[in-house]
């Protein structure tokens, strides 16, 4: 498709969205978030945001790559894969303030593209019993755009929207195109997102086209598609290991800053289960090894999610559920799960809501969780600061993640859905 035709189609679709009042409000709210973050950045947070780290990492990647993880170079720890710094090289050539503004403008446009991709995916996977008009889709897209986690994403100059964009792009490719070359492309895009930020790392197992048919007791594997997808996603990730091989110091520094250093110990308001456990051990002086806690919980929760996926009774559009469960596993098990990471989850929840039967009881698990994460989770960050001397656990987010995990695994595993759902 020529680029001009694509632009015209995008423009026309946005015009269609614009006719809905809620979407106009959503765009205004987004613009407000961008302006607010820019003002706060220049007045108070000029050297106190995550973008400083990305900006510095781009510069250090070019000039002194061996010291990429030397935390003396940063305000806060740089913890991502080394190639993630590569993406910030263009910004590091600009004046810092200008780079921040441009980065956030880019984030704004990414949000528009994310909305369009959500729309395209939802139109394709929407359950037969859903309304035929697009009003409800536009409503949910608008709710996503109004989501409170965007504020922090803009204020910190964070890169979560790049991850969301990549996740949705790969999902869209997997749903629409079945040829092997497209499978490779979709997984490479997902691999690139892992380079930028490993939030989507636990999506990798769900790329496997594998299912144990409970009725026939047979394991079905689409071997070629699975292998191609794995190769595709691992190519970008393994490029980092080429860098680690050339610069061994990078590898040891990467491990230290992510898993074994003091950073994973620090008391904070992350809503991940791992953090709740380490906070508990820290608070009550219980000796612990943060790496073992991480591995055990990844094994337990990741195993639960993955085996539910393999044993699924419903195969239609299953990758949507795989992706959603993958992100939930990451948010539950990695040390630091912040409010702005939820921008990787909420679009997938919206897609799930539209894929489930309209009146499914399971929506009772998904919808409240979506609204909690989109509007209320941030409140509990504030509450954490009030309670941490006595109760340093931001547990409500973890609770809703478990609610989601329960709802989704139940959807995948139960033989018959409840009466209300069965007729749908």
């Amino acid at each position, binding site marked *: 498709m020529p680029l001009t035709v694509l632009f015209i189609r995008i423009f026309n679709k946005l015009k269609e969205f614009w006719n809905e009042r809620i979407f106009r409000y959503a765009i205004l709210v987004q613009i407000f978030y961008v302006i607010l973050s820019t003002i706060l950045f220049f007045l108070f947070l000029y050297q106190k945001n995550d973008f400083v780290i990305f900006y510095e990492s781009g510069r250090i990647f070019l000039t002194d790559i061996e010291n990429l993880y030397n935390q003396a170079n940063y305000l806060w720890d740089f913890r991502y894969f080394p190639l993630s710094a590569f993406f910030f090289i263009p910004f590091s050539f600009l004046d810092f303030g200008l780079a921040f503004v441009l980065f956030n403008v880019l984030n704004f446009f990414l949000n528009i593209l994310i909305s369009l991709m959500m729309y395209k995916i939802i139109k394709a996977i929407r359950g037969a019993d859903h309304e035929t008009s697009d009003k409800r889709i536009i409503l949910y897209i608008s709710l996503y755009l109004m989501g409170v986690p965007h504020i922090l994403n803009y204020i910190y100059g964070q890169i979560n929207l790049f991850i969301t964009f990549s996740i949705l792009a790969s999902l869209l490719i997997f749903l629409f195109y079945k040829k092997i070359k497209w499978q490779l492309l979709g997984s490479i895009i997902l691999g690139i997102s892992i380079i930028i930020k490993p939030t989507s790392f636990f999506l990798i197992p769900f790329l496997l086209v594998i299912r144990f048919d409970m009725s026939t007791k047979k394991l079905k594997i689409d071997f070629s598609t699975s292998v191609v997808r794995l190769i595709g996603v691992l190519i970008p990730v393994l490029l980092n290991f080429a860098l680690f091989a050339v610069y061994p110091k990078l590898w040891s520094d990467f491990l230290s800053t992510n898993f074994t250093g003091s950073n994973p110990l*620090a008391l904070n308001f992350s809503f991940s289960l791992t953090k709740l456990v380490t906070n508990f051990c820290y608070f009550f002086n219980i000796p612990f090894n943060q790496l073992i806690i991480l591995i055990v919980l990844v094994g337990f929760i990741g195993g639960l999610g993955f085996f539910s996926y393999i044993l699924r009774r419903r195969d239609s559009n299953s990758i949507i559920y795989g992706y959603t469960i993958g992100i939930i596993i990451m948010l539950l098990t990695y040390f630091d799960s912040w409010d702005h990471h939820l921008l990787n989850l909420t679009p997938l929840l919206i897609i799930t809501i539209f894929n489930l039967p309209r009146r499914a009881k399971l929506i009772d698990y998904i919808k409240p969780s979506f609204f909690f994460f989109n509007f209320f989770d941030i409140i509990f960050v504030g509450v954490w600061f009030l309670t941490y001397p006595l109760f340093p656990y931001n547990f409500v987010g973890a609770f809703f993640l478990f609610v989601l995990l329960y709802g989704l695994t139940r959807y995948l595993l139960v033989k018959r859905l409840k009466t209300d759902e069965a007729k749908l």
Partner: protein
Amino acid sequence: MKIKKRDIYTSIMLLFLFTLSFSSNVIANEYQNGIKTSDELIWNCNLCDDNKMDALFGEFWNEAGIFKDLSSNSRMKWSVNMVEENSTTLSALISIWMWMSEDNWGTQDNSSKFSYLKNPSLYPSGFNFTNMLPFIPFWLPVPVGEYLGEISLGDIYDVDNRVLPTLNVRINKDSIHPNEPTENVYIIAVYDNNGILSSFKLYTSGNVVVVDISLESFSILVIFSTVGLLLAFVCSIVLYIKKKRIN
């Protein structure tokens, strides 16, 4: 006409953003004393493994300095007599009641004057607060995170300001004297908004805590917030389930 107006607004907004981006953005921090005259600060020692400390630092580790007589369930009190500020320094004169287990504080053990440079960047590169236990200060100027961030601290320190102002310390085996400490020792010191040490944990590898000290500061607000949070959470769940059952 409408389109023109919109164009003008857009242009103004973009111009505003770009002007901001090129404008000067160096806002100097004005550091201050977070403590006030007549403030009373009490720290509790929740845990002190004497045997382990003897093994790490030798048997005289608690015979001098701020850890003098430190033991489990003991308390230390500071009473702020005076805070001073001039063009270059921030200082405080403090009466100290050293670590004791009795409720009656009695007469003060000593008084000390602590001072900090108002401009933290004037501290020499590789600055260490102290080369002996506890390796960290019990109070700092505010805002703490920024103050710590501006000091070019020695290699043993790592400042983490992401959530709570935190000073991580790593004291390598044999780095003080030969055989002192006898293994790597780590410290996490967390400060409150007033620059007062709120939590100190000294631990060895495997996160085995040897010393745990915390500021005695459970305000009514903390208790009220915690109870309120838990109650609100439980009530919300119960109400939600009830509502769904009725429907």
